[in-house]
């Protein structure tokens, strides 16, 4: 009997896997179908303006590093940028701080960099990137380089003026690039999670040891201030999780008290529409704060 149940269980699991694969395949198909339809519509509209093939080209340009060499594409990046900005404005609400949680084994720097740039383009001020192996953190500089590159790619030369402040935790070293609208990118690893709470606790206990403080003074807001590390970054209102694992995997336990979690199947080859979909979903969420 146990054997039969075991077999049935395996069969059930297989079924779920097949179901998942089918759904994600359909999603991709549906999107490309919709995309093609959209492209055709735009093409039909723009043909009289002698700009045939524009939508197709635009798609290719996404991955084209020489995009800015060409003045026409420069205009296009500007177009795209204003579209993204207006997308951001049209949302009911936009998070001030977004977390990108990658719960996949294979990481793609380019796709994450794209996501970061899109987040900034729609008007999000703080973007945190996390993976539970701490690989992004270990390769912090590669990550940041990639972001700058994608930013130039996607937003054009002008776009890169609107620049980024990178925070590297622990070392207190700020790599500042030109400043104007100043979105902030932070690369996080598991050490910023529980370990930072432990460090704050240790710091408090040290001051108690030295009789500078009593255990009675310790409060939630005191710990909160310590964990904010003097920078006034708000807690993330939204975490977009990529990958099949349904877990926070150690992402900033203290800070995700009221964070909305939205899952996307993978960060590889993720499209702007996927991100926008997640943001729209977030826009419709209501928070009651215990009431």
């Amino acid at each position: 009997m146990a054997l039969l149940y075991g077999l049935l269980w395996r069969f059930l699991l297989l079924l779920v896997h097949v179901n998942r694969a089918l759904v994600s395949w359909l999603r991709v198909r549906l999107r490309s179908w919709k995309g093609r339809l959209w492209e055709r519509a735009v093409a039909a509209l723009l043909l009289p303006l002698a700009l045939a093939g524009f939508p197709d080209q635009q798609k290719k340009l996404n991955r084209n590093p020489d995009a800015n060499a060409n003045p026409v594409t420069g205009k296009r990046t500007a177009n795209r940028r204003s579209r993204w900005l207006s997308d951001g404005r049209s949302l009911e609400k936009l998070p001030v701080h977004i977390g990108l949680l990658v719960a996949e084994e294979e990481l793609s720097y380019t796709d994450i960099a794209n996501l970061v740039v899109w987040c900034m383009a729609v008007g999000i001020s703080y973007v945190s990137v996390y993976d539970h192996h701490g690989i992004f953190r270990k390769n912090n500089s590669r990550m940041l380089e990639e972001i700058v590159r994608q930013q130039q790619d996607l937003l054009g030369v002008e776009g890169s003026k609107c620049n980024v402040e990178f925070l590297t935790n622990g070392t207190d070293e700020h790599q500042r690039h030109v400043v104007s609208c100043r979105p902030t990118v932070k690369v996080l690893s598991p050490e910023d999670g529980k370990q930072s709470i432990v460090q704050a606790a240790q710091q408090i206990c040290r001051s108690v040891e030295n009789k500078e403080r009593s255990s009675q003074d310790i409060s939630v807001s005191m710990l909160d201030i310590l964990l904010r590390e003097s920078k006034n970054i708000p807690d993330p209102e939204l975490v977009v999780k990529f990958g099949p694992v349904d877990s926070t995997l150690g992402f900033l336990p203290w800070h995700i008290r009221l964070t909305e979690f939205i899952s996307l199947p993978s960060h590889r080859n993720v499209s702007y529409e996927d991100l926008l979909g997640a943001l729209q979903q977030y826009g419709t969420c209501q928070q009651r704060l215990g009431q």
Partner: protein
Amino acid sequence: MSWIREGELNLLEKISANILKAGPMPKHVAFIMDGNRRFALKNNIERQEGHMQGFNKLAETLRWCKHLNIQEVTVYAFSIENFKRTKDEVDGLMELAKQKFERLLDERENLEKHGVCIRVLGDLNMLPLDLQRIIAKAVVTTKAHNKCFLNVCFAYTSRYEITNAVREMAWGVEQGLIKASDVSEALLSQCLYSNNSPNPDLLIRTSGEVRLSDFLLWQTSHSCIVFQSVLWPEYSFWNLCEAILQYQLNYKSIQKARDLHREHQALLQLEADRACVAEYLQHHGNGKPADAQRRQEALLHYTTCREERIQDFLDALKHKRDSFFDDLESEAVVA
């Protein structure tokens, strides 16, 4: 309505339960039972009635869990933030809690038969005194039971719990039981209200909200989190099965992440111990550089001492917490 539901599963449920049990099962499941008020609104009934049905659903869920070999359940009954609701509703919820805990005491024998241990996690001081006493009585009465465990988070938020753990450690430092350098992730976990439980394997939130709302933030950092859109009073056996299936799909990757985290933690502890030993040797080494063997011995000695220190502190903390409940309970007897 009672806390303990007798009754077997029907045939179809039993078969499905057996199929699920062929895979890895969660040992500890946590619930955010959300949607009572929306359920009341939807069905045009009083809000209090919605909460009542929510409680009945909890009793039913506990029965399912028992049949699914889930020994431990943690539920979010009342958040510190919930004190912000209207006075009427808060009073209603306190009254409901009082009734239910009184009912629980009436069912003492049944609880003993099933070996149900009830724990209440949260800051009881925030509650009305009569409720505190009844809760303490329920907790003390069922303390020795060890077959299944129900943790009720009442006047609870996770940030408050973590802060309280830090406060307890600071108390330990004040009392001279531990040093500030002994503070570690493992110790902090031991100082939480949930120190007697393993971390939940599965966290379920109903009613379609996709956030944790300050619930078990520390304990669920490597748990499978499942958001379901059904309202809590409408929760069914099949919803629970669906969540467990999702846990089973996630099992391998989450286990891997847990192992990775555990290894990392052990490494950090070793590094911390080494740093402390190095400091000690510098102060007491008469300027001579210590050789490898001496360093190794010192490290071993230090680790043993630290572990003893921490054990003494945890014993003291346990004593403090137990006597809080015992005192409340004996007051209740006198009253």
